[in-house]
């Protein structure tokens, strides 16, 4: 099969596959750093932008990828995988997704290597950029910080999907036929985000929590049986192993050590994380009654939060102690004073451990018969304001100019809607 290919084509193809693999890893890891990515277009070719796409090369990531490949190339039976997992501040971890770059035996002898294969690989990378923002782990990674971080692991060889739990879904990013086989890129992602079900020894963890007593018991059990980290388990294949305080990990996953100015990531631009956010993100995937909920039957509504990470809740604390209405905790330390003020304004009562009690949808002083849900929903909604775009220090001068350019247009729109605004103001009075 391979002898049909001209030597130059074979050489080119090997180079394309190698750099495609490295760029694939960069795109995936960068999409899980928790920040928005922005690169510039350049009309003059620089010669170093593979596949005509501006994808930065983070040196540690390239290093890890090359280490995992160990001089080999992805091929038939030799897949390159990037595993994304979540690790809580308590030390528990859970695999979220596995991206697989594989090759199958279906060959396309007719295709021109230097032209069509290259361009199709470029399109596939663009598709990867788009799809990495769509899988559930993206939202989780944008909200990482105090309570959890996102880690990655690259390995080569056989694909391992068992850590993704039951019912994982697969999305195919795309395929590119080559004369030596068809390159396929896909992602298998966990759908069952109930943290409990990941811990095999605890049988009683699955299913609904019946009441406070039971949930406390389960919390206590799961809290004490911290399993060995997934990352350790995964190391047996000889893949790259990444654990904090390994330099690369800390560098890339924006691990929030408060007041560490030496952290190499730009923290100022990140929106401050309200710890209840991951809980909300996981809302769509599991429906369980959270710990410390006093009346589980009234709490199970469409808007009630789940508590997949009940393990976060500190052992032994009862609900009154954790009730943010009774003991409003301090806001967690924030990287910049401006962010700090935003955070404390918008999220009073969201301390680190108390957020799990935010599952309780009965805000203090609201009467049961008067639509408690709306007040609770209101509270929840305004607790996590999206970060103002203008406060993100990640903006390039290009987008600053763009913001200024769009101001007249925005003013026009606002002027047009002035009646609406007036009506709103009247309503508030």
């Amino acid at each position: 099969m391979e002898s049909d290919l001209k030597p130059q084509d074979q050489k080119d193809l090997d180079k394309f596959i190698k750099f495609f693999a490295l760029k694939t890893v960069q795109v995936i890891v960068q999409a899980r750093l928790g920040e928005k990515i922005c690169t510039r277009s350049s009309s003059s070719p620089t010669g170093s932008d593979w596949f005509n796409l501006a994808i930065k090369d983070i040196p540690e990531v390239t290093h890890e990828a090359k280490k995992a490949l160990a001089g080999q190339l992805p091929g038939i039976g030799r897949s390159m995988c990037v595993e994304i997992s979540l690790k809580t501040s308590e030390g528990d971890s859970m695999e979220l997704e596995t991206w697989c770059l594989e090759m199958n035996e279906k060959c396309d002898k007719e295709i021109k290597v230097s032209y069509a294969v290259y361009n199709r690989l470029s399109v596939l990378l663009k598709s990867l950029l788009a799809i990495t923002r769509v899988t559930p782990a993206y939202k989780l990674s944008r909200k990482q910080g105090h309570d959890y971080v996102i880690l990655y692991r690259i390995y080569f060889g056989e694909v391992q999907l068992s850590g993704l739990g039951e019912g994982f879904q697969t999305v195919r990013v795309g395929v590119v036929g080559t004369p030596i086989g068809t390159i396929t890129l896909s992602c298998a992602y966990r759908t069952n985000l109930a943290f409990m079900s990941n811990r095999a020894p605890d049988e009683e963890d699955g299913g609904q929590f019946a009441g406070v007593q039971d949930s406390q018991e389960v919390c206590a059990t799961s809290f004490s049986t911290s399993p060995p980290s997934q990352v350790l388990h995964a190391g047996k294949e000889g893949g790259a192993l990444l654990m904090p305080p390994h330099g690369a990990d800390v560098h890339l996953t924006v691990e929030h050590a408060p007041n560490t100015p030496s952290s190499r990531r730009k923290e100022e631009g990140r929106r401050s994380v309200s710890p209840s956010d991951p809980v909300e993100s996981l809302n769509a995937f599991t429906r369980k009654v959270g710990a410390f909920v006093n009346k589980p039957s009234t709490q199970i509504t469409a808007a009630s939060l789940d508590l997949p990470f009940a393990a976060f809740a500190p052992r032994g604390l009862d609900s009154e102690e954790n009730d943010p209405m009774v003991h409003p905790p301090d806001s967690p330390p924030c990287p910049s004073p401006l962010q700090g003020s935003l955070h404390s304004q918008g999220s009073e009562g969201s301390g680190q451990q108390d957020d799990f009690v935010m599952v309780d949808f009965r805000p203090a002083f609201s009467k049961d018969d008067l639509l408690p849900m709306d007040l609770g929903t209101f509270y929840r909604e305004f607790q996590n304001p999206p970060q103002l775009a203008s406060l993100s220090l990640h903006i390039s001068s290009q987008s600053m100019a763009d913001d200024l350019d769009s101001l007249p247009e925005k003013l026009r729109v606002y002027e047009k809607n002035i009646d609406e605004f007036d009506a709103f103001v009247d309503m508030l009075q």
Partner: protein
Amino acid sequence: MNCRSEVLEVTVEARQVEEAMLALLHTILLHRSTGKFHYKKEGTYSIGTVGTQDIDCDFIDFTFVRVSSEELDRMIRKAVSEFKDALSNSGSDGMGQISLEFYQKKKSRWPFSDECIPWEVWSIKVNVVNLANEQERQICREKVGEKLGEKVINVVEVINRHEYLPKMPTQSEVDNVFDTTLKDVQPYLYKITYQITDSLGTSVSTTMRRD
């Protein structure tokens, strides 16, 4: 040649129309844009670099990737804004459709004008709903975000079939295939059109937005 036609359908709130359309149109254009071509001697050419950026939506729980080109973004926003205005002026439960068509120009001899031959058309059907309260709106934010994610996967699936694409043109032909007017990227020649169906079910207007 046959024109490939794809239809995507979304149901959104009025305030989400703009972002939903931008998300889908930019996702398609990301795949249908290349770097600027620089032709050299002997018919070879080199290609510029396309940058990308993440855009967070304000009214939808969604982030999409678009090509880093302010010019292109301005043009798409203008078309989407016209569509959105037309939709809102048509009445509360309006339905509309915005189409992104990629075409090739075929030069004809005088007195005939150049032909525009479409090779791929993406139609996005929009149903606008009104929601009663904040709780529903919050759920809608998330649901529409998930739906858009599914649409992005659909788009990627179609594009990765690697079906017909115009041949890479020579220097003299490049304007028949690509839009070379932008300074930083080069999308395939495209045009955006839209149709609004009012609540009576009749198609009210079709406006050509030529690019």
